[in-house]
């Protein structure tokens, strides 16, 4: 159907039905100071003038800092081919692939992305992605609530606090009982979480590596969770899954993560990519799209959206989620990135990142008064206690060209001296050395 604007007669007719005199009256509820006319915007400028102004504003950003900032989002190298391939017009402008006859390439890419994610997590199925790790976690929680018909959710405090805030706000009106189990000096409190599980528990939610970088094996805990017929949800950092025991190997029912670290640049907070994977028993509860591979009547391979009887476009009232879009382009970038690296390359990325972080931990804790806060094994991220306020250290070092990390005190009261430090394969030993020396001179 062509786009046809309303004629004056049609507008009159609609206003008469509603019972108002004019379009202006229709908006009478909105105070005049909130109307665009009151904004007193300056007159239009030429393209050149606008560009100049924007460039001046952009130049105020400092872009040559050395960053040790992680806390869920990591600065990994992205091969140039990821940009080149993902910007091909077939992918860049593709219509949501409801019609397999016109979307085979997109559907195949989604199918392969799902396969890669399921393998990475050691799980049976993945969906075609959701907005970001936080919304994936929320959807996973609702899957558990639907499956178990229970309301109690036990959340580790060592789960990314940004996700915990999202979970809180998304579930505000769902009458769920969220119980947060405090962390134990940066460690996931396995004992307390296990003790909190009972017959009313829908799920436990933990993270590996957790927010403080600490690495766990939750296998035994998940067994206990299953004894109560509750589900185990695990939030992950996908790059690290190439070198850690996977959620599937630990017995998780649902594993989620943010795909930012594989193929998406850090770009002022997005776009991100929500990875969702689950066991076969839960696939019917998984929201969003799932692409499947099949054969046509001539035996040729074809790709289709499958298990979608509850998708928004078929039986809307039965939809498992009201989040109606996935992140197909970001998912494609993650797939291309993974294909370019291969299993070995991803493992090398993870290993290098871990090695650099361990070197950084060694250098930083050699400074008087700096101690490891993260106890036990850690991956590419760890927390240190400083003898001074971490916020102040961050301010001082940023002025010297180094973002030393994330201030744990921003989300955890009483831990204002704790700094969360992350490394990737991009972090050099030289950068770590400079960071350590400047820090030594600062505190």
């Amino acid at each position, binding site marked *: 159907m062509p786009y046809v604007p309303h004629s004056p007669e049609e507008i009159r007719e609609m206003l008469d039905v509603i019972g108002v005199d004019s379009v202006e009256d229709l908006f009478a509820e909105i105070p005049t100071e909130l109307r665009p006319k009151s904004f007193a915007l300056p007159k239009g400028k030429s393209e050149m003038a606008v560009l100049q102004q924007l460039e001046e504003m952009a130049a105020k950003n400092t872009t040559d800092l050395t960053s040790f900032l992680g806390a869920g989002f990591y600065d990994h190298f992205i091969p140039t081919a990821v940009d080149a391939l993902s910007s091909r017009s077939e992918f860049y402008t593709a219509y949501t692939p409801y019609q397999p006859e016109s979307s085979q390439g997109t559907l195949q890419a989604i199918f392969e992305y799902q396969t890669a994610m399921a393998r990475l997590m050691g799980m049976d199925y993945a969906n075609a992605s959701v907005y970001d790790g936080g919304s994936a976690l929320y959807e996973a929680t609702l899957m558990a609530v639907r499956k178990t018909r229970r309301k109690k959710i036990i959340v580790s405090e060592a789960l990314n606090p940004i996700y915990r805030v999202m979970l809180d706000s998304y579930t505000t009106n769902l009458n769920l009982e969220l119980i947060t189990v405090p962390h134990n000096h940066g460690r996931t409190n396995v004992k307390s979480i296990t003790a909190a599980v009972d017959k009313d528990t829908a799920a436990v939610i933990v993270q590996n590596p957790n927010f403080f970088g600490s690495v766990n094996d939750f296998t035994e805990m998940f067994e206990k969770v299953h004894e109560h017929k509750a589900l185990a949800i695990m939030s992950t950092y996908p790059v690290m899954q190439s070198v850690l025991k996977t959620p599937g190997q630990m017995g998780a029912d649902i594993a989620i993560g943010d795909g930012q670290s594989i193929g998406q640049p850090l770009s002022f907070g997005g776009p991100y990519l929500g990875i969702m994977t689950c066991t076969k028993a839960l696939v019917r509860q998984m929201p969003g799209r799932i692409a499947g591979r099949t054969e046509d009547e001539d035996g040729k391979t074809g790709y289709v959206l499958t*298990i979608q*009887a509850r998708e928004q476009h078929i039986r809307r009232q039965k939809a498992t989620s009201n989040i109606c879009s996935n992140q197909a382009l970001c998912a494609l970038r993650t797939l291309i990135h993974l294909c370019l690296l291969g299993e070995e390359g991803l493992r090398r990325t993870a290993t290098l990142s871990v090695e650099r972080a361990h070197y950084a931990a060694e250098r930083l804790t050699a400074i008087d008064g700096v101690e490891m806060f993260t106890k036990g094994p850690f991956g590419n991220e760890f927390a240190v206690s400083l003898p001074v306020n971490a916020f102040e250290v961050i301010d001082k070092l940023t002025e010297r060209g180094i973002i030393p990390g994330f201030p744990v005190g921003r989300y955890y009261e009483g831990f204002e001296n704790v700094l969360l430090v992350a490394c990737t394969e991009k972090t050099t030993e030289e950068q770590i050395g400079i960071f350590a020396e400047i820090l030594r001179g600062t505190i």
Partner: protein
Amino acid sequence: MIPQELLYAKSHEWLKVDGENGIIGITHFAQEQLGDLTFVELPQEGDTFAAGDEFGSIESVKAASEMYAPVDCEVVAVNEALEDAPEKVNEDPYGDGWLMKIKITGPTDGLLDAAAYEKVTEEDAH
């Protein structure tokens, strides 16, 4: 293909009454209309329904349909074998393809006998 001893709902569920207890399934006609089944979603033990309430859904390669309780009831057991083998409903809708066992908690007056249901299927088929 319409067993005489069962009661039927217009929405193509059958009910076998055995005193206070009953068994519910969908009819041969319904499974034939749906085609090859891919999934059966069933309620949980202990769930209660009023006659006409939706108690689950059934998906085939052609369509997804809701299923409705033919009578007020409480679920005593569900056919868990259908989770892995929904095709049992196609193969044996009045036998191995049963859906759930119930305790009947309301009247069965509104249901059809085999002859009346046959008329419904004739009308639906045309």
